[in-house]
């Protein structure tokens, strides 16, 4: 524990302002209820907290299950160095989604109700169960880091004994609820704008979640390499970027086919907000996809980072389009979040970054054990070729 006062930097000042406004918004939320702090209405009951905090939060945390599957189930060991940050992101992400739900639920004291009051016909019921179980799985996947830090070998062994079923359960639970977040909207065919309503919403939500999980892994590796002055695992990230490019191409092609099958192209000719925000969403996803096919882009840390950021923003635009843009016309309501909604959301995002940083600083997140393979840290930036040339275990 250091007693030194933290240095005041621009980012810390911004964070402090966000935190204070978030705390004030929290007070208002408790004092005046949802009506006092949100612009939600009977016509528009789900806003920023569902559209961003939940839909985007869960999606952006998808790197956890994707990398667990890659490293431990497909046994591609070379990705191990970026596994722990991905699990930490996922664990924090899901925990913060639960925090966001406590703001959004009318009766947060009853958040546990779906666990004992069942309705298997409800997508929300399935999501509630999956998120609860998967957050538990993530906790168990993350906790070895803590055991390692304090040298507790016995509990480390217990977790190790159940690790395979645990990881398989994690991947399955993620598959179920990542797609189910799309299924939530299957029931509003008369309200969701035709550019987004589709019977394959669960599939497109699932594929885009996997893709954005990989983009987030690249994003956080880039940031942590700057924050902690460590070398960037460029060859690894570059080969991950290849997978990302293929996933994004698949995703965009499926969306294109879907629009064709729904005969929704005519809708694109209308000069409406929906059309332009749809174009923005597709552009933010298509541009990095094309760029990532260039080797030069994949091997440049900054270009790679820029592509990852574009994918993340494309994903966020898509989820907000489904949750907000696409629901406005059909609901006959216009929705712009109140400042308090934005303040709470920013506080949750800020808290995510801050907690990640603190944990990464005090726990072995970026120095994962590598039994086989290349040395721990190459000096500065690695000028190697893409990881395909590195022999696997």
């Amino acid at each position, binding site marked *: 524990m250091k007693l030194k006062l933290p240095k005041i930097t621009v980012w810390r000042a911004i964070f402090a302002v966000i935190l204070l406004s978030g705390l004030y918004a929290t007070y208002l939320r408790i004092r005046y209820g949802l009506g006092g702090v949100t612009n939600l209405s009977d016509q528009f009951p789900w806003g920023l907290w569902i559209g961003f905090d939940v839909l985007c939060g869960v999606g952006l945390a998808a790197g956890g299950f994707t990398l667990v599957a890659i490293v431990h189930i497909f046994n591609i060991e070379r990705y191990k160095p970026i596994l722990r940050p991905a699990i930490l992101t996922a664990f924090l992400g899901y925990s913060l989604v639960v925090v966001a739900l406590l703001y959004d639920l009318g*009766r947060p004291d009853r958040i546990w109700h779906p666990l004992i009051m069942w309705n298997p016909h409800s997508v929300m019921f399935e999501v509630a169960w999956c998120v609860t179980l998967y957050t538990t799985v993530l906790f168990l996947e993350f906790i070895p880091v803590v055991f390692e830090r304090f040298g507790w070998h016995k509990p480390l062994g217990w977790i190790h004994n159940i690790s395979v079923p645990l990881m398989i359960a994690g991947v399955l639970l993620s598959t179920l609820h990542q797609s189910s977040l799309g299924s939530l909207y299957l029931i509003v065919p008369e309200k969701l704008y035709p550019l987004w309503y589709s019977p394959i919403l669960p599939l497109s939500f699932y594929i885009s979640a996997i893709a954005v999980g990989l983009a987030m892994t690249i994003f956080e590796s880039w940031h942590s390499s700057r924050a902690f002055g460590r070398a960037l695992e460029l060859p690894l990230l570059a080969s991950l970027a290849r997978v990302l490019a293929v996933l994004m191409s698949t995703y965009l092609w499926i969306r294109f086919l879907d629009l064709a099958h729904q005969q929704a192209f005519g809708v694109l000719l209308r000069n409406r907000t929906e059309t332009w925000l749809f174009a923005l969403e597709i552009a933010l996803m298509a541009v990095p996809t094309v760029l990532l096919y260039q080797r030069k882009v994949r091997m440049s840390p900054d270009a790679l980072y820029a592509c990852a950021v574009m994918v993340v923003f494309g994903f966020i635009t898509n989820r907000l389009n489904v949750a907000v843009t696409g629901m406005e016309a059909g609901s006959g309501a216009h929705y712009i979040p109140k400042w308090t909604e934005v303040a709470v959301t920013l506080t949750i995002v800020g808290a995510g970054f801050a907690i990640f940083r603190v944990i990464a600083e005090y726990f072995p997140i970026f120095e994962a054990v590598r039994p086989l393979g290349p040395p721990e840290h190459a000096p500065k930036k690695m000028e190697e070729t893409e990881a395909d040339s590195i022999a696997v275990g």
Partner: protein
Amino acid sequence: MSRAILYDSTLCIDCKACEGGCAERWGLPYNDKIAAEERISAHKLTAVVTHGDRYIRRLCMHCAEPTCVSVCPVGALQKTSPGPVVYDAEKCMGCRYCLQACPFQVPTYEWNQRLPKMRKCDMCYERQGQGKQTACAEVCPTGATKNGERDQLLAEARQRIAEKPGQYYPKIYGVREVGGTSVLFLSAVPFDQLGLRTNLPQEALPDLTWRVLELTPDVVSSGSVLLGGIWWITNRRDEVARKEGGRK
């Protein structure tokens, strides 16, 4: 037998007696200001809405296969066998999926309460159980709102259209919409002119999500086998290496 409400827009004179009767039945305040609000809300569970010189009542449609019942994660909403869709506030956690999903935008929320509930018409479930009429039907002076058995009301509605074809739009709202509803509307003009949604599918909406949800056991079981199998195959290499290299 299933209970229902038939509302005949051509007989409605906008006296708003149904609104007053409903407010009284729920113990909600009712005054001129609330009467002037032309929409349903948490303090006004039915409303007579004016469209030019015509009127339409808004209230819960009590679907045969209600969307709200299917989406509620805690089962706070139930379709009762006599017809009404009822709500158990003690279960509700306030996710508002019912508001989001209802094709008729009926459920409303107590946005400004600290311990809020969802509010909607329950077709006077208790009153009907005691053999009484719904409050709205009881006070209606013109017979625009009638409460009875769905089959009989449907037959009556068809008869009215057949007897005065010039006076009615030849369809009954609620017969086919989202698989049928327990509240039926008659009108002189096409229903979209009264602000009713006419783009609703004829199939019940819960089928749209159930089609995906029912795959869950298949995904879990096949997924476990597949992922377990992949793990077993890919880790075989390590096992062999360990065996060959002795204990490590």
